[in-house]
Every structure is written in C-alpha cells, then in structure tokens.
C-alpha cells in the first residue's frame, strides 16, 4: 500500500499522522484516509474535492495531482507553502 506523509504544519490542526492506505491514484489513497479520518478532508481538499490552492502533493520526488497513479511502494507527500507576515 502507498504510504502518505503530511506536513507538520497540518498536524497542528488535525490528526495527520503518516499512514498507509489503499488506492491506485493519489486521490483514491487520500479518499481511503478521509474515510477513516473525516476531519482531515477539508484541510486537504476544498468544497468541490479539488486540492486546496496552496496544498501541494508529491509522489516520491515528483509533483503530482489527484489523478496521478500510484503503486504499492510509492510515497505520497502532502505539504503546503507558508507565507505571510
């Protein structure tokens, strides 16, 4: 199963521990995690289920989208760009 790791900044607001989840795409893996942890959903995707504007996803070392395919040994990283003063 693919492994998903989240930015530490997210852990400040919601349970977002590193986990393994089923799925053949980034979106499907995240959906598996959301099913087990519903609060996590609105932090990562917006009302329409799109990745939030400032949330970035990488699969291993490549930028990815929700429809990016993933394999059992892949690692998904969910993080964001912090900004502001």
């Amino acid at each position: 199963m693919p492994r998903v790791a989240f930015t530490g900044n997210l852990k400040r607001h919601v349970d977002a521990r590193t986990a393994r989840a089923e799925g053949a795409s980034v979106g499907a893996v995240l959906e598996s995690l959301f099913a087990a942890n519903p609060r996590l959903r609105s932090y990562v995707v917006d009302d329409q289920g799109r990745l939030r504007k400032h949330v970035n996803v990488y699969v291993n070392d490549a930028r990815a989208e929700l429809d990016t395919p993933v394999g059992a040994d892949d690692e998904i990283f969910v993080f964001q760009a912090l900004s502001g003063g």
Partner: protein
Amino acid sequence: MSKRILVATRKGLFDVRRSASGWRIARTAFLGDILSQAMRDPRDGALYVAQSLGHFGVKLQRSTDDGKSWKEIAAPAFPKTDAKDGPSVEYLFSIETGGPDRPGTLWCGTVSGGLFRSADRGESWTLNEALWNEPSRKEWGGGGFNVDKPGIDTILVDPRDSDRMVVGISTGGVWQTKDGGRSWRVTSKGLYAEYMPPARRNDPYMQDVHRIARCAAHPDKLWLQHHNGVFRSTDGGETWKEVKSIKPSKFGFAVAAHPKDADTAWFVPGVKDECRIPVDAKMVVARTTDGAKSFKVLTKGLPQKHAYDLVLRHGLDVDETGKCLAMGSSTGNLWVTENGGNAWTLVAGNLPPIASVRFA
C-alpha cells in the same frame, strides 16, 4: 454595561474582560491562526470562532465551557457540483444567531457569496439555495482585502420576527427575506456606486455594502456604510437616503447603531477608497445623535498624530446600553469607550490586525 469583548484577529483570539482596574486581555486562543469572527451565543452561552487557515481552508470552532476548550465543528461548504469551477467557501465573513425563538439556529455569510444556515449549533450547514440561485448573482462582484469574490458581510435578523432578515453583500447590494430565506428581494434603492459607468450607477446589484447596523429597539431604522458614503433607512431597509452630513469623510467600513436611540450611530471614516487611512492621520469616530442632521467628531483618547488605523467592517461594536463601544483596527489597536465615545481608552496597542470585535 458589558464586561467582555471577543476580539478576532489575524493571529488569534483575545478574550478581553472588564475588571475593577479596567479592561485587560484575560485569555488567548488559536494564537497564530487567522480568525475572521468570534461570537458568544446569548441563548446558550456557546462561543464560536471562525478560522481562515489560508492553506487549509475555513474552519469553525465551538466552545461550550466559555472558552476553556474548543471543538472543531462543521464549517459551511458548498454542495458538490459537476462544474469544473464549482464554488468553495473562501472566508467566513459574518456569523449571527437565528433569533431568540430559534435555539440552535445560526446564519453564516461567506466569501464566495453563499449564505448558510445551521439548525443544530453548527454541527451541519445548508446553503441557502434561494439567494445563491438568484439570477443577478452573476453580476455581484468583489475585490480587495479577503474579498476577491462577493462577500456577505451583514446578516440582521429582525428582533420582531426571526423569519425576516436583512443581508448586506459586498458587492451585491441589500437583500431581504420575510419568509426565513425561502425568497429574497433586493432593496438597494437610493444607494449609488460612483465607480460604475453612469448607466449602472444605481444598479441595485452593484452596490458595495460595507456594513449595515440596525437599532434594536426600532428595527426599521438602519444605518449603512457603503463604499461611496453613509446611508440611512427609516422604512426597514426598503429605501436608503444618503447622509451627507458625515465628517470628516464619507468613506469607511464600520458602523454601530445605538440599541435604543434610533437617532444615534457611530462611524469610523477614512480618507477614501484608494487611501484607506484616517483623514490627516488623526484617528476619529464620527457620531450623530440627531438622526444624521449633524455629526460630532470624537477624538479624546484617540491618537491625533501619525495614526494610520483602519477599522474594518466588524471592527466596531456597541453594547446593550449604548454607552460602551469597542473598536479594533487593522493596525492592532483596541479601544473602548464607556461614555458613548466621548472618551476612548486604549486597551491594547500591539495586537495583530483586528477583524472583529464583539461584546459577549
């Protein structure tokens, strides 16, 4: 007189209390988080805080132990659509209780222009489809601080009838319902938009309503701070008349209406839209006590040199006596007056930018 103010800022919540020695910050929460609103529900004592976490979206928190602990509850969200550009809530702009006879009912106005209702203290929210599907909505606009899309900044539930509401939209005009939100009609008559082409100047949907306040004891008497000036309605918000006596300027965001005296209201003018600082860098509050025949410019206790504070839409509140007002600025100054504005006291001068102050 009120003894507590909830201050929602760009970097957290400040719970400010009045003790024998004066006003002081008694507690903080959500430090580092961007907040837009904080409210105490007088019907059951619950506290609500609206967060806008930027990267992670809008969230709503509730406390049932007066702020000792908080629980994340559902935040308003649009239903999923098949459209590629379907809407998402970007900012929780206003939150209000649904009236004394509707326990548990809350209303929330958002950017991108959706009005939401909860009947269960924020456990779930429903989009008001009637207003959202209003054909003129495609004409509504936005632009500026936190408001790249239309924002519902004002929700006034009529104290005589909880089914009657006045809503202010920036930019989208004044809207009213008499049936609890099943149907809406625009009531912007008398407002004008200087920034529009002449033919569209009086377009009811183009009016940039910064904030509306109503006299609780005389709910048909309302005051409105518009992008282009100050207006008053004496017929329940059906029609609006410009208040030309406002000074030192007609631009501003905030307005507070006296809870008993329909002729008394407070405004915090700034130079104008493209220069959002106090006139001559002097912080002032403009008060009328004669139904806008005249205004007095209140300065005592406010900085009269090099002051660049802007008081945003929800940055001014008045308590139930009409004597105590709280004012918070985008520069992080919090002032209180206990004599209707005759003299102000600085409670804190180094807060984060203040989005909302509210007596609790």
